[in-house]
């Protein structure tokens, strides 16, 4: 593209009222009448720019706009507070779980380590006898111990 055409296109892509000086205006007028391609380019450009202005959307906010903002603000504040307290909450829950687990181990441990098949541990059955297991157990009556 010849340099005058480049200059013309650069100028018509800018804002005449801001970017042009009188020499630019004279150049554009002269070049437009002498170069049909650039004149056509300028027409295309002006048509596309003119389409932009009526293309604006006449949108207006909803009536409850302010209320929605207030609601969202309340939700955001709650979320922020939660995010501040969340580590403490998670830590607290984790500590509670650990304490519960430790207590469970401490209370279960003696029973688990004590032998269960010792006569001394035999518990009295409902019928009054000492049995290792309740009725239906595979152990059967303890030898030498009378039920009566």
């Amino acid at each position: 593209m010849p340099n005058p055409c480049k200059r013309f296109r650069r100028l018509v892509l800018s804002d005449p009222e801001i970017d042009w000086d009188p020499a630019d205006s004279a150049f554009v007028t002269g070049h437009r009448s002498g170069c049909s391609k650039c004149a056509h380019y300028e027409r295309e450009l002006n048509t596309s720019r003119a389409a932009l202005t009526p293309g604006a959307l006449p949108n207006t906010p909803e009536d409850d706009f302010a209320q929605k903002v207030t609601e969202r603000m309340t939700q955001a504040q709650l979320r922020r507070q939660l995010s501040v307290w969340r580590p403490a909450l998670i830590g607290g829950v984790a500590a509670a779980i650990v304490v519960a687990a430790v207590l469970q181990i401490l209370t279960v441990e003696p029973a688990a380590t004590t032998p269960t098949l010792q006569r001394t541990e035999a518990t009295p059955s409902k019928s009054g006898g000492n049995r290792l297991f309740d009725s239906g157990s595979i152990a059967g009556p303890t030898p030498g111990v009378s039920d009566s």
Partner: protein
Amino acid sequence: MIRQAIQTGVAYDPKQEEAALVYKTREGEDAAFRALISRHRMRLVRTASNILRDPVEAEDVAQESFLKAHRELHRLRDDRAFGSFIYRICVRLCVDRLRVKRAEPSTLEPADDSASGVVENRLLVEKLLNRLPPDLRATLVLREMEQLSYEEVANIMGVPVGTVRSRLHTAREKFRALWVAATDFRM
């Protein structure tokens, strides 16, 4: 407020009134913040609609702008400049949304012939704007639709005036090319 200014003989200054509202909002007065919302919501929703071309999303972005402005009110040095402060937040949120949306491919289809001229034009403009990169699109909308000066666009976009000029140049050229291709396609 105006009547009060007339009665007291003090010149009414909307910027001063705005600064007072910002001060009261900082002090935790909800009514003052609601007054700021009613002052600026129309402009924010309109600009967001023009940039995003989606009224529902525009409303959402405008609301988010108020939330962010309220959260970052401590950063505002001049309370009289709340208008440009929140406007800047809104435009940046729009550009961020466009960047996310750009991952979604869009196809250029001919406009519906049954639609009326204005609606048809809006749909076509919307489709063509969708094809511009977010920064170019926002710059073009702020200048051509919102009629802002170069300095105002530069301030809102957080770039030098020279960058605004260069972006406008590129955006107009790209939009022209897209417009020509689309209208030829429809013939």
